[in-house]
């Protein structure tokens, strides 16, 4: 296969004495949906946060379209990026958080237009049109002028997805997007994510929604204790896992 859109190469990360990621490597190709599953504390979220440099790995590298994240080539050496250069890289990757993190002092539509206007310098009118399209797509056009605090969790998360998509990212990272939601609101968010997957968006999804992983993912990655234990197509991971740790985890959650 050709160059992966995202390559994670032997990433290690520790918080104090806690070794959270151990030599994790993973390739994500354009158009793929990869779901990362595993028990709490297995390093799934940290792995995702290392991709866009919210956490800086202690060793190892992450590449987007072959370019290392956080560094630039200068001759034969790698130079650490300034925060402005890093911002340019981050623009190409959207991220959705478990806790939504909408901007509470901005209306829903302003949450979506903030990035395009401030970061990309798009004019206000086109930014609003694009934002309204995205809000209709996630089913929240009528909430455009509301403030985030008046929305339900599921609505907030859909706005957060629209906010990320407004930057036209090459890749979307989802960090347990439905874990903070009431059970009856999970479906709406997953539906939006499914639509996105069918449109061909490249996605890395950390999730506890096994049904979503089984139905939507091209690839399922199982992590435990900071290690990538096994990865493969969902039918293989769910039906015939090779490792005992995968089997025991799946027997607990399925």
């Amino acid at each position, binding site marked *: 296969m050709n160059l992966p859109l995202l390559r994670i190469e032997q990433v290690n990360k520790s918080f104090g004495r806690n070794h959270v990621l151990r030599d994790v490597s993973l390739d994500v190709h354009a158009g793929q949906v990869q779901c990362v599953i595993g028990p709490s504390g297995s390093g799934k979220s940290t792995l995702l946060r290392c991709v*866009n440099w*919210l956490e800086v790995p202690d060793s190892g590298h992450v590449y987007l379209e072959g370019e290392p994240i956080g560094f630039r080539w200068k001759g034969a050496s790698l130079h650490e990026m300034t*925060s*402005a250069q890093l*911002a*340019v890289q*981050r*623009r190409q*990757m*959207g*991220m959705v*958080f*478990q*806790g*939504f*993190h*909408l*901007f*509470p*002092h901005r*209306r829903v539509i302003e949450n979506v237009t*903030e*990035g395009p206007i*401030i*970061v*990309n310098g798009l004019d206000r009118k086109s930014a609003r049109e694009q934002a309204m399209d995205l809000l209709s797509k996630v089913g929240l056009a009528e909430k455009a*002028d*509301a*403030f*985030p*605090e*008046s929305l339900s*969790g599921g609505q*907030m998360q859909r706005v*957060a997805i629209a*906010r*990320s998509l*407004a*930057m036209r990212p090459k890749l979307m990272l989802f960090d347990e997007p439905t874990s*903070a*939601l009431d059970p009856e609101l999970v479906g709406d968010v997953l539906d939006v994510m499914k639509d996105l997957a069918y449109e061909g968006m490249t996605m890395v999804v950390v999730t506890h929604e096994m049904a979503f992983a089984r139905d939507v993912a091209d690839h399922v990655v199982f992590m435990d204790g900071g290690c990538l234990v096994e990865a493969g197509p969902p039918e293989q991971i769910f039906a015939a896992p090779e490792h005992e740790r995968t089997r025991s985890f799946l027997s607990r959650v399925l």
Partner: protein
Amino acid sequence: MTVASDPAEGGTFRSAQGVRKVPLRHPWWWVGGVVLLLLIAMFVHLLVTNENMRWSVVLEYLFDAEILGGLVTTLELTVLAMVFGLALGILLAMMRLSANPLFRSVSWLWLWFFRGVPPLVQMVFWFNLATLIPELKLGIPFGPVLRSWDTNTVISSFSAAILGLALTESAYAAEMIRAGIQAVSKGQTEAALVIGMSTSQVMRRIVLPQALRIVIPPIGNDLISMLKFTSLVSVLATPDLLYSAQMIYSRNYKTIPLLLVATIWYLVLTTLLTVAQQHFEKRLTLTRATAGPAGNTRRLRFLPSFGKA
């Protein structure tokens, strides 16, 4: 409803429906009220009947040109000290939160010093700066001097007062602003970073607007304190409201009436500021409450109430 008897207790159930209810009495409220009213009456009696109050003199001087001039100086001192203090406070707060240990330590030392030294001591100190440093020089550190000024021409009693007040305020403002910035959740910064904002855009567009709303009430309180602290400048012979009154009574010995004039003006100013502050806070509330069905009571709750972070 039937009246049922309780077989275990042997008693009968007595319904409270339709029975007259006697509210709880508060006899001590009456005692306290009478004592307070008596004290208030005595105080009003003193104000009205005491000859030494000289209300006619108070009225005569209330709009005296010298007093009004002092009033303007007091307002100038308040505004200038507050503006410099807040600007410096924002800078110090950022330094305090910086990843650079040198910035953090310098900011810490600054706060330690200017919170520890009383503003009055500082003012006298700044006023006498010429004794320590006779000339202020501009040039390359440890190198040639480009320009120099006589310290006594730069440091007037007015600028010494501003320095003392503004530097003290900067230390307090820095702590308030730092707390405000820290009250904005880390998730806000992360969400802004992942849509590609630079660190300065994150600060200006996302963190500071939320932090400043949190610190507006304490800054309003500081403004009111500042107005009162300006009266310290009378020791430097700066003709503020208090010193103007003092100059007049040193000539005509009508001490109490002129102190009353100053008191009345201070009360007028603090009342105006308090009303303005309340109005401003209410408007902040309304601008956000109008948007959702949440209503007035829920506002100013920007702290992450969203999900479990």
